[in-house]
């Protein structure tokens, strides 16, 4: 079997697959060709600035932006006026959290979030702590979800914002946002959710889910990179934000800067496709995901799924392969694009804080692989990936002193390990 990572056709029974295989759809997605097609005229023909009010080029661009705004709003049950365009979800998270903190600081200084949020939320909260805000980081349970009683207990009369993600980017676990939102509304607290991974994959409705502010990104749902949005509720309650980027007063004064018209057009189209295809696609992805899970778990012992299988994105599978280090596994399957929670694959040399947050233990965090299935994956690809993963895990376990010790009946948790040299 070839391990070359260039475009070779791998024999896999009678089903051929094109290599490399992309299965990292939580990182980003391929821009759907239908999206690209819709964007193209806005580069070379309809290239006006949407803020140009006095000529045809500007009107055409503005009209395209407004159509996209409608499409995005429709996907999440909002109105067009509630959609603020940004450069992406990191900016949206920053605007939501800092914008609320600054606007409502007279009312209170307490913010609640949870341990396995994206860094765009965690680091923003950490910055606010430096400016005198109090932040509660709720723990998650073993299945990756917060305990609503913890949230209730954490709320006090100074709480102004709860920010809890809809779906986690590593383990795909869905938080009980509807219940969280209801609780926030009961207490008069604003609820922001980073819904980047959920929107377009699983139904999300700002009214039914009691969401006041939501971050969205185009490139996670087969749109282009560099464009995102923030949903900001206009009634019951009306949410006000202090702008974090000053300038020409675009986007109702909440986000200045010339609009990325091509990106926004693509974002709108991506949302329109998601709206019509989501239900069918979710079934398709869950089928592929379960096929992958069953093939791997049917052939290997001591593999562990990280996070709830019940409350999970259909395209996500996050597995720890005990006794095998994640980066070495990625190296063995280098014709397949996936991610690992291993320290060696992170810039910080720390294993995944998300998996540690579940109480998985550092050793299992080092051994984890995230498979992110998407619209363009096929059953033949899944079969190929399962086969390569199983072969590589077996090979690396033959190489693993831990696997050998475990098979000899040694309890690895009772071994007194020597201190490792500093990283």
């Amino acid at each position, binding site marked *: 079997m070839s391990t070359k990572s260039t475009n070779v056709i791998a024999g896999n029974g009678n089903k051929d697959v094109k290599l490399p295989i992309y299965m990292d759809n939580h990182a980003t997605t391929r821009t759907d060709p239908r999206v690209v097609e819709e964007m193209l005229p806005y580069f070379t023909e309809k290239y006006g600035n949407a803020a140009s009010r006095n000529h045809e080029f500007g009107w055409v661009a503005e009209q395209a932006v407004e159509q996209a705004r409608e499409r995005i709003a429709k996907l999440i049950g909002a109105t067009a006026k509630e959609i603020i365009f940004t450069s992406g979800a990191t900016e949206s998270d920053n605007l939501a959290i800092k914008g609320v903190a600054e606007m409502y600081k007279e009312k209170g200084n307490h913010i609640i979030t949870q341990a396995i949020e994206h860094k765009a939320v965690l680091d923003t909260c950490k910055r606010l702590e430096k400016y005198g805000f109090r932040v509660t980081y709720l723990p998650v349970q073993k299945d990756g979800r917060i305990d609503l009683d913890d949230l209730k207990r954490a709320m006090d009369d100074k709480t102004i914002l709860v920010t809890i993600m809809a779906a986690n980017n590593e383990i795909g676990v869905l938080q009980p946002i509807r219940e969280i939102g209801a609780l926030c509304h009961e207490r008069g607290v604003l609820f922001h959710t980073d819904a980047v991974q959920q929107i377009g994959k699983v139904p999300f409705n700002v009214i039914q889910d009691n969401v006041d502010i939501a971050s969205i990104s185009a490139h996670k749902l087969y749109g282009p990179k560099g464009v995102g949005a923030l949903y900001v509720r206009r009634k019951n309650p009306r949410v006000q934000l202090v702008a974090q980027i000053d300038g020409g007063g675009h986007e109702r004064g909440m986000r200045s800067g010339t609009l990325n018209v091509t990106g926004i057009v693509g974002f709108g189209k991506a949302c329109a496709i998601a709206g019509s295809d989501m239900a069918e696609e979710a079934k398709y992805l869950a089928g592929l995901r379960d096929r992958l899970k069953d093939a791997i778990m049917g052939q290997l012992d001591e593999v562990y799924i990280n996070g709830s299988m019940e409350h999970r994105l259909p395209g996500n599978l996050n597995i720890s392969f005990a006794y095998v280090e994640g980066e070495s596994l990625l190296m063995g399957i280098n014709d397949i694009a996936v991610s690992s929670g291993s320290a060696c694959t992170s810039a910080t040399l720390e294993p995944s804080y998300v998996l540690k947050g579940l109480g998985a233990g550092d050793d299992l965090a080092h051994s984890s692989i995230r498979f992110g299935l998407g619209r363009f994956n096929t059953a033949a690809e899944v079969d190929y990936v399962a086969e390569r993963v199983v072969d590589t895990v077996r090979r690396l376990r033959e190489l693993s002193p831990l696997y050998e010790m475990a098979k000899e009946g040694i309890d690895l948790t009772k071994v007194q*390990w020597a201190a490792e040299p500093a990283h």
Partner: protein
Amino acid sequence: MAYSDKVLDHYTNPRNVGSLDKASQEVGTGLVGAPECGDVMKLQIKVNPTTNIIEDAKFKTFGCGSAIASSSLATEWVKGKTVDEALGIRNTDIVKELSLPPVKIHCSVLAEDAIRAAIGDWKKKNGQTQTQGQPQSVAVEQRA
């Protein structure tokens, strides 16, 4: 991260994978690292009692590709050397040979530690004193 050809070669075709009888008088075993740190190396040597030459070496490693390559290379290098010569292998030699980037230097340090731990274990078994600078890095195995 792009791996050097030599790291890829050792990862794809690791040399001297396996285990020697750790109860044997002629065998020294070094087990260094810790699972929660993401690296564990076991390196074993078999020493000729009359010549002190390392006649065989085996390893098993849990760790990234660079850790696997460093320990694989270490077994190649200790074979045929006397125990004292093997103690002269430095992690910097491994870094150079495998073109390891700075972020992977700890893999080479661990491989040097594994060599020293294996030799230390063999010396202890054979009533020799510990070499100066010997890391106290042989993990203690306890049966469950």
